[in-house]
């Protein structure tokens, strides 16, 4: 995971091109691969968007509607509570992203260059592999009126013999959603920042600047904000925008934690799409476009805010002030970090308790008895979803890793870094709200290939797996010492041989990490699985979300634990294997 995000275009020491007289098949495939990458990412997203535009304009031949009009938008506008829905989406998306970003910065600033930063990274990185649905289930249990917090203080402090009529989760202001999203996105942003710092040159440069600032008498936190952040931020921009886009349009968290009078816009859209009243699909499509506008607005707002902050603080960053109550901020950050980690540990332990709990009446702190029943009954029904989860993950990840490696090899063979355009395109499926383009994509898939849900789902997963795999592999690939390849080539090895026998073994560890990451991303996909599979393809995640909104909290806990265990196993394997194979590749 430490590879993380890397700047895709890298200037400077690009390896010298390996000149070839004649292009062999391998070289041709390699040089074609970036085009394929762009096609795979752009086509579905753009076509998906176009195909959601038509029904939004009331063009839906199945309902014998073939005249274009704005009825969908009028209906949308007249929906009771539409402004509240939009406001809730905007507020939860913006506030959670801002909170996650600020806390991540505070942790970085307070623990920069200290051993604690790595410890916090180790504690938080498992959160990254927890799917949103599982995290929402865990958080929900913690903050519910009958949740772990209430049990810890009841009845001795509160006198509650029965759960009180509380406010969380499902509070009307979306605080529960903000809490869940913040906790889930914080580790992501932190790891992205650490990934950027792990780049040898940038990391070295920033650490040097930081040391200089300290020597000049700047207090640590101030030194971070003045000397490190301005250079670090450009590396965080795309991940932040991806988080912002996700948070404003996600479905799982608001579905499990959010209010429903009214819910967020994205949840409403899903409900309209699935409503018995089929004409509601026109309104749903219009809503999907509104969601797109909202998310785009948020992104624009964030970019504007960046500029504003830059202008405002351009003076203060060179005003020579050495500290801004650093000692207090240090303490605040330490407390906040302990709070965040404590919250996560408590919610995870609650999840484990529920998975084994027999009768467990409020306000008892522990279950009356521990049973294996929930695991047994879940496992009897889990085989199909498990096989689906694993096979879809394997197919989409294998393809993503293969294509990424080819693209990176293309970059080295042609000695041309991928263009800015390409690096932006890689983020496209993360920046466009999936709810806006997935419906169109499903419609397209229906036309082109309605018989194989498996293929459709794997393809939809690929759109989300590919960016992460690419980002995870890019830095290691670009860091490969080009001399090995040069020596091999000068000894007459064909590019294909250099690729398979020289480069890939050196990349054994990063490739395994990328595979584990790709699998984790695929395992966690809810909306793409649900929509592209037409509900036919059940995975652990779709089952977990279906169960989370009802049935048994104990069964939900078992599924959430499964959701966490699967990617975790992947990462453990990825960490262990290099110790036994290709020792040179393990760093």
């Amino acid at each position, binding site marked *: 995971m430490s590879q993380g995000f890397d700047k895709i275009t890298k200037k400077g020491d690009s390896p010298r091109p390996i000149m070839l007289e004649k292009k062999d098949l391998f070289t041709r495939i390699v040089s074609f691969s970036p085009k394929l990458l762009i096609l795979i990412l752009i086509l579905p997203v753009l076509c998906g968007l176009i195909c959601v535009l038509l029904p939004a304009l009331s063009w839906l031949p199945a309902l014998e509607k073939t005249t274009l009009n704005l009825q969908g938008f009028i209906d949308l506008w007249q929906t009771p*509570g539409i402004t509240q829905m939009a406001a809730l989406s905007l507020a939860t998306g913006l506030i959670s992203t801002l909170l996650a970003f600020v806390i991540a910065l505070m942790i970085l600033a307070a623990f920069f260059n200290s051993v604690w930063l790595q410890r916090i990274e180790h504690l938080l990185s498992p959160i990254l592999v927890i799917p949103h649905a599982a995290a929402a289930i865990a958080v929900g249990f913690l903050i*519910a009126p009958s949740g772990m917090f209430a049990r810890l203080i009841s009845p001795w402090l509160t006198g509650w013999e029965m759960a009180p009529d509380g406010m969380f989760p499902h509070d009307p202001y979306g605080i529960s959603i903000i809490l869940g999203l913040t906790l889930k996105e914080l580790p992501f942003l932190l790891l992205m920042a650490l990934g950027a710092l792990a780049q040898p040159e940038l990391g070295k440069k920033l650490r040097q600047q930081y040391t200089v600032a300290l020597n000049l008498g700047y207090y640590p936190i101030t030194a971070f904000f003045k000397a490190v952040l301005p250079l670090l931020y450009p590396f965080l921009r795309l991940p932040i925008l991806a988080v912002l886009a996700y948070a404003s349009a996600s479905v799982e968290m608001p579905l499990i934690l959010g209010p*429903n009078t009214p819910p967020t816009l994205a949840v409403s859209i899903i409900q309209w799409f699935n409503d*018995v009243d089929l004409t509601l699909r026109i309104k749903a499509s219009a809503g999907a476009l509104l969601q797109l506008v909202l998310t785009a607005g948020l992104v624009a707002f964030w970019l504007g805010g960046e500029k504003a902050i830059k202008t405002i603080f351009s003076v203060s960053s060179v005003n020579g002030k050495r500290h801004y109550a650093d000692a207090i901020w240090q303490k605040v950050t330490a407390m906040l970090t302990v709070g965040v980690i404590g919250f996560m540990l408590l919610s995870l332990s609650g999840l484990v308790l529920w998975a084994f709990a027999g009768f467990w009446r409020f306000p008892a702190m522990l279950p009356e008895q521990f049973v294996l029943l929930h695991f047994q009954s879940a496992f009897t029904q889990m085989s199909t979803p498990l096989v689906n989860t694993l096979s879809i993950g394997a197919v989409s990840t294998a393809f993503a890793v293969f294509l990424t490696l080819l693209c990176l090899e293309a970059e080295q063979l042609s000695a041309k870094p991928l263009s800015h355009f390409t690096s932006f395109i890689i983020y496209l499926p993360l920046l466009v709200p999936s709810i806006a383009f997935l419906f169109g994509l499903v419609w397209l898939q229906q036309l082109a290939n*309605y018989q194989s849900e498996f293929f459709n789902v794997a393809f939809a997963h690929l759109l989300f797996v590919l960016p992460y795999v690419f980002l995870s592999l890019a830095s290691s690939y670009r860091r490969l010492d080009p001399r090995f390849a040069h020596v091999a080539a000068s000894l007459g090895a064909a590019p294909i041989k250099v690729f398979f026998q020289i480069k890939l073994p050196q990349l054994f560890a990063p490739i395994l990490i990328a595979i584990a990451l790709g699998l984790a991303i695929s395992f966690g996909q809810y909306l793409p699985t649900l929509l592209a599979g037409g509900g036919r393809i059940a995975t652990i995640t779709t089952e977990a979300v279906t169960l989370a909104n009802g049935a048994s909290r104990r069964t939900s806990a078992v599924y959430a634990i499964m959701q966490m265990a699967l990617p975790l196993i992947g990462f453990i394997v990825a960490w262990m294997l290099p110790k036994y194979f290709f020792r040179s590749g393990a760093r």
Partner: protein
Amino acid sequence: MRVIATLPMLKRLTRYSTYAMVMSICIGISASTASPTTANVNQDLSPWQQIEAQGSNQDVYFYAWGGDPQINAYLQWVADQVDDKYNINLVHVKLSDTSEAVSRVLAEKSAHNDDQGSVDLVWINGANFATMSENSLLLKQWANKLPNFALTDPDNNPIVNFDFGVPTNGMEAPWGQASLTFYYDSLSTSKPPTTLNELATWTAQNPGRFSYPKPPDFLGMSFLKYVLVMLHERQDAQTGKDISAQLNLPATEENTALVLDPLWEFLDNFHPTLWRNGEQFVQTGAQMRRLVDDTELSLAFTFSAPEVPAAVQRYDLPQSIRSYAMSDGSLSNTHFVAIPYNASHPQAAQLVANFLMSPEAQAKKQTPSVWGDKSVLVQSTLSPAHQALFKTKQPHPSALPFDSVKRTVSEPHPSWVEAIQQGWQARYGVSP
């Protein structure tokens, strides 16, 4: 000169043809994974035997609500049975809402997929059925030809031919019957309300301890219909008018306000006494059950009475739970399975539907520890051996006592669902 000009074009053409080849290979691979098997049709066989011959050895994608592990386990048992009997591979596609299946079939219709649909069989009733039937999304005149359909005594048993008052026309095979059952936590409340009046008094005395699922949830709508029917019975008795008859007619612009205003008046006073002051509602009956387990609610209801003792046995509800039926009436309805018009395996789906109606499957389903869904079969049509399958053992303490449903209330016309839902959404869908 010409040749030189075409060269780059040729080059481009080769490139495009490579793209096309890759694409076609991908499509080819995915298409080859699905190959419908059609058995030879022997003209000498009876229609049912032909269906048996054609339907065996196929897949059946059964789209059914998947929110209850007990029901899921029962469907798993059904899958094993039809696998043994007909070598049918029954795949339960777990829906969180049946309307997802309706949308699916619609999407396929819009893509002109008229014979390779993904839904083979769907668990359905009420508004979803009305929608599918209006849009001609269902296969017609098959259910009444299933051999086991005779066991429901269709001539004397209207519940198997009407779905919320709408004739099924052989588009649905009856599968089970349900009536609204209430349950309460006996440690929190010793005397639960048994009429609508008592319920209103009870929630006023126990604020925040009752709620109902938000429409359009099926169970929430059922509760609202129960309230509506009861309010009109009471009002008609007081005023001597007969407004409740309107409930069996389609909702129109004229009668909607007349019929629904008493409901809104009641809910205006009722909601502030509910969980979260009626500003937040649970999404499903299962979520409501979980809140009872959390002791946030003390009273709840379900359409599937046996889910209550089963949940206690699974530790999902406390042991202090007791079930009962409202004494002023229990809303009752029948649920069905249907086959979409474009199902890929309609014959196999009929074999499954017929098996679902078999005494064996119905008796298993009625067993409280399995599912406890009331059978649609009429006992007098069954052989003594089959009747014996339905004998129950010692009931669980939290199960609905035998014969506790004193009076059943039938469902209003399905068009009221839409009217109630819209009115509810406009009034209570956005909390202040």
